[in-house]
Structures are given as structure tokens and as C-alpha cells.
């Protein structure tokens, strides 16, 4: 029964805001109605805020640490009280679920494509045809559930006769665009390496692009290209994240280099043997690393961009 329920969770979680709706203090039926009206308006207003950044794409050159940073960011944001939808569209390495501490794999979205191409759109594929898809309306076979997190993968084409990758990209793009996120919900996409996905318009549904930059010429050049392409499809929010920084001097140099290219920097992560160890053994990323503390700051910088 609804007994102790605060729709925002403000009663028990210190980190969640109380909007003073009065639901928990209401005593008469009239007060209840008034309070739920306030709550309803708040939820609606949150849903319609235009400048919010809820869908973020983590991208960059191969090997810069996209999956690792996606996992670290997901953990940091969950600790801030957000519910995450993490989407793995990087088909080259299957490590992301492990870094997140998930064991059971989910069915990739691509399996829908096979059914679609056979003309089978019913009844279990109909959810994809809705105008908006909320986190809770994705069937469980495509989702791995964890507290405050859902995980799904796009999948890759294995069979050469399976069809064109464009079809897959269409499906993924449609999906990203249709996902409808509520209050305190964020979608994080681990993109495939390079800028090819931009060519297919995958990022069109995304509100914010986070290029990962490591101390290398190639990676810097690619970050600039990503910024250029993101602007081209109308995403003004681009914030670079520095990774694998060996020393403060190099961080300074990287920051200056990016400043010259007029790119915002959300923050940086130093080389961390604990993280490399976890990445090597395919285990969940440990919680109390220096990198986790650095990513917490990055998450705060990204969230302040939302306002």
C-alpha cells in the first residue's frame, strides 16, 4: 500500500530533493489532492525541460578507455541517485558488462532485426513501434537489471548474409531517439571507436557527446573531428574527458591543447594500476580507487552542464 511512499524518494534518501509538495504531511482528502497536483506538475515540468542533457554518448579513438569510463561514470551517477540505462554499441570488446559487475548477458537488439526482416513484428516487437519508449517498457530479454541500472547491447552482425549494417544503425538510432527518460534517469551509450557512427546519424538522438582523449596526437585530432561532427548534427554540448594521464604536466598540456581547439574539458582521470588490473582480469571495477574519485568530479561537471 502507498503508506510511506514519497514519489521523489525524499523521505529516506538524503541526496534526493524534497519539493515541499506536502504529500507526506497531507491529512485530509483535499490536501492529498492538492499535494498530488503539485507533484504531478513537477513531474510534468521536469519531463518537458528543453535544455536537459539526458542521453550521453561516450566516444573516441579505439583503446582510449571508452568502456572503462562508461562504467566509472555509470557508477558515479548511480551514487548521485540517478537511474542509468547503459547501452553498449561498441561491438569490438565485450568487456563492459563485466566492468559493471553484471554476469548474465542480454539478448542484443539486433535479434529484433532478424525478426523484422522476416516480417515478424508481433506481438513482442510491438514495443519498438511506440512513439516513445520508457525504460520500463523494454522487454526483459533485452535488459540486464541491477539496482538503479538497466543494461542493453546493440549487438553485431556475425553472418555475412545477415544484411547491411545500416539497417542495424537505423534500428539503434530509432531506439535512442524514442527512449523517453524521466526524472533522474540518464542514458549512457558506449559508442564504437572512431567517427563512423556519426556518419550513420546514431548520435542524432543524443543530447551530449563525451569524447575521451588520451595523451596522443591521434586521439586529440579525433576529438576535434567529433566536436565538428557533433555540431554538424546540432549537438552543442561536447565535453572532453581526459584519460590515462601520466602526470600533472601532461594534463596541463592536454588542457591547453583542447582549449586552443575551443573544447570544454569535463575533467581528467590519471593512470590507475587498479583500473588496469580490473580491465585485464575482466572483473567489476573497484569502488574506492583514485579514478573513481576523479570520475565523481567529472560527473558533477557534466551534471552542472545540464542546468
Amino acid at each position: 500500500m502507498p503508506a510511506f511512499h514519497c514519489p521523489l524518494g525524499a523521505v529516506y534518501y538524503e541526496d534526493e530533493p524534497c519539493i515541499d509538495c506536502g504529500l507526506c504531511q497531507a491529512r485530509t482528502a483535499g490536501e492529498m489532492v492538492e499535494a498530488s497536483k503539485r507533484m504531478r506538475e513537477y513531474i510534468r515540468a521536469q519531463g518537458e525541460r528543453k535544455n536537459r542533457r539526458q542521453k550521453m554518448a561516450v566516444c573516441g579513438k579505439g583503446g582510449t578507455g571508452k568502456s572503462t569510463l562508461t562504467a566509472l561514470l555509470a557508477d558515479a551517477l548511480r551514487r548521485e541517485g540517478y537511474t542509468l540505462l547503459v547501452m553498449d554499441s561498441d561491438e569490438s570488446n565485450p568487456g563492459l558488462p563485466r566492468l559493471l559487475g553484471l554476469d548474465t548477458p542480454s539478448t542484443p537488439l539486433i535479434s529484433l532485426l532478424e525478426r523484422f526482416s522476416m516480417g515478424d513484428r508481433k506481438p513482442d516487437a510491438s514495443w519498438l513501434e511506440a512513439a516513445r519508449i520508457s525504460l520500463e517498457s523494454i522487454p526483459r530479454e533485452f535488459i540486464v537489471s541491477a539496482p538503479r541500472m538497466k543494461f542493453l547491447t546493440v549487438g553485431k552482425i556475425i553472418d555475412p548474409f545477415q544484411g547491411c549494417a545500416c539497417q542495424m544503425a537505423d534500428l539503434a538510432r530509432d531506439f535512442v531517439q524514442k527512449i523517453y527518460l524521466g526524472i533522474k534517469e540518464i542514458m549512457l551509450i558506449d559508442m564504437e571507436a572512431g567517427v563512423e557512427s556519426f556518419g550513420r546519424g546514431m548520435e542524432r538522438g543524443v543530447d551530449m557527446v563525451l569524447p575521451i582523449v588520451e595523451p596522443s596526437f591521434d586521439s586529440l585530432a579525433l576529438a576535434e573531428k567529433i566536436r565538428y561532427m557533433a555540431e554538424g548534427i546540432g549537438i552543442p554540448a561536447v565535453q572532453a574527458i581526459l584519460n590515462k594521464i601520466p602526470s600533472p604536466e601532461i594534463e596541463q598540456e592536454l588542457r591547453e591543447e583542447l582549449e586552443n581547439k575551443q573544447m570544454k574539458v569535463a575533467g581528467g582521470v590519471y593512470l590507475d594500476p587498479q583500473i588496469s588490473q580490473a580491465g585485464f582480469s575482466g572483473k567489476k571495477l573497484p569502488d574506492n580507487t583514485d579514478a573513481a574519485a576523479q570520475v565523481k568530479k567529472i560527473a558533477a561537471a557534466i551534471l552542472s552542464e545540464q542546468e
Partner: protein
Amino acid sequence: MREVGPYYETLAAKLVKSGVPILDPIYLELAEVMGSKESKYIPRILAKLATPEQARVIRELPAAPEEISAKLRMDKALVEKHLKEMMEKGLVVITKRGARMVRNTLQLHDSATNNPKYEKLLGEEYLDLWAAYQLEEHFPALIDTLVGVDRGFAYSRIVPRWKSIQNVPGVLPCEDMRDIMKSQEVIALVPCPCKKGFQKRQCGVRDETCINVGRTAMYNLNRGVGRKVTPAEAIAFCDRTDEEPFVHIAINQKTVNMLVCNCHWCCCELILPLLRQNKYPLWKGLAKSRFEATVDSGKCKGCGKCLERCQFGAVQMKEDSVSGLKKAIVDTEKCMGCGCCAVTCPTGARQMKLVRQPDHIPDVGPVVY
């Protein structure tokens, strides 16, 4: 209309015959604040839960202990002690903004019947008062909340047994107990307040069946009610109780963030009120799941297990015109899609099929509609 048994039907008469004690008017005042001014039972229930002194402390809420202490000229430590005891008993809830009295009798019922610490102290008559109050006064008043005429959808929904739908594609995470449990940070197994309130019920289902999650679990654990379990233990509990006659019920929305009830019609606050009236069909106040039972008549041996398992009278045995054998058939109007028949069918003849679209379950539930 279903009856719950002769004991409960005559309970009210028995309690009234035992004589109405002379109550301190403070209890009538508290009852009025809870919107139960006219109730025969609520003031008596309150008198059992709180001493007159404690009742006066509660009457001052919402207020800080210092203010209450100054106003009633009572020691602050004593005020705090009373508030803590009232919190454990379920009359007071501690929120971020301090202590407050429970909102209404629905909330009181869910919190004030299941703390084992006070079970002996409150005694059997206390629980009988609740049973009489539920049957006589509360259930008729609850119908509107459950049906939600202005809301347009039912208050709660059936969650199928996970084993009954494990091979069906298109299941949502909010419909599969395994996913529901895996997405929780805190889970507590709590004695069900409905079952506690009907001590002489006939269904024989154990008390400890209420699966609290999230904040509700934290609330109960904080006041010493229930025990913390892991997602795996909660799923194991569901598996172990496949044979027991109860259905999973959750609040009618796509996120499960309060609890999953395990209910039998004879004592459930969410089912019984709807069975004791004729204005609305059951599914108006308790939404069916998106699934429906089917029977493979080739496999059905007519053993009648499903007839005994179904709480909603949705099974009929009919003679097959060809073979002359008895076979089970499903009354689709009555089938709620709980999957109880499917998990115990000895021949696997009963299967669940997906029959409703995802929007059958509202995104935002009845608490904020």
C-alpha cells in the same frame, strides 16, 4: 459476494457485546484527524496503541520534540521516548521533516499490526478489532480508492509467477519477479499486515509473505519489523512457495518501488473489498496481468489441480464431446493471469500467453496519477 467465514461475520456483534469502554476524548480527536470520526473501532484501536499521554504528544504533530515538550510541560526525553515507541508501533512515521502521524487508517493498518515486539502486549482483541473494522467499515470505503474512478485505472495489478512466463517472449522487467528483485537495493521479508489482522483466517498461508522493497523495506527494518534478504533469497522464497495458495500483487505501475504482496483472497486488503461488493467487477480494482492461462486439451488429464489452485473461479471442468473425458477450460473473463495454475499443472497442459499490450500497465501509478 464472498464470505470469509462465520467467525469473522459475527465478530462485530461479539465485540459490541463485550461493551464499549469509556475512552479518553483524545482518541476521538485523533480518529477525527485520520478522517475516521464516525468509526466504532478506530478510537478503540488507538486506545490500545497509545496511552492518553502518548496520544496527547501525537496530537501536537507535526512539531519538533522541543515544541511539544514546552507546550505539554513534559520532559523532552520523555517526548522523544514516546515518539520512538509510536514509530515502532506504526502510529508515527519519521520523515525528513521530523515526526508526523500516519495519514489515514489505511496507512495505520499497514504499519500497526505487524511489529512482533508489541504482539503480546496488544493481544488478540486488538487484532479482532482490526478484522471487524476492515470488514464492516473500511472495505466499503476502500472501493473508490481501489477502483479509482477519476484515475481510470486499478490501484494494483497481478504479477504472474515467474516460472509460468519464463518461456514467453516480450515480458517486461516489471512483470518478472527475478528482474523486479534484481533491481532492488534493499529487500525485506515482512509479516503481512492483512494476514496479521485476520488471525483466524482459513487459507493457512504463513504470516511472513510481504516482500518490501526500497524505502518501504527501509522503513520497516528501521522499526524492527521484518528481515533483510538478498535478491537471490527473495527469488528462492517465491520458488519455495509455488505450491502455496497466493498471488503476487504490486502497485499498478511499471516501476516496483514499494512492495510485492503475496495475497490470498480471504484476508487481502486489495482483493477482499472487491469480492464483497457487486458494483464493479474484480479487475476494475485489481488489474489483470498482461497474460492469460490457456489449456492444451491434448495434454490435460482432467486432474482438477488447477480448479483447486485458482483463487478467482476462472477454471471449469467440462466433458470433452469427442473423448468423453473431463478437461479444464479457462474462463477468460475471470482469469487474472496470476500463473498459479500453470506452475503446478502436473502435465504442463496449462501455459500462459501474452494477450495485452505494454501500455496495459501505467507508467506512473496511482499514488501520483
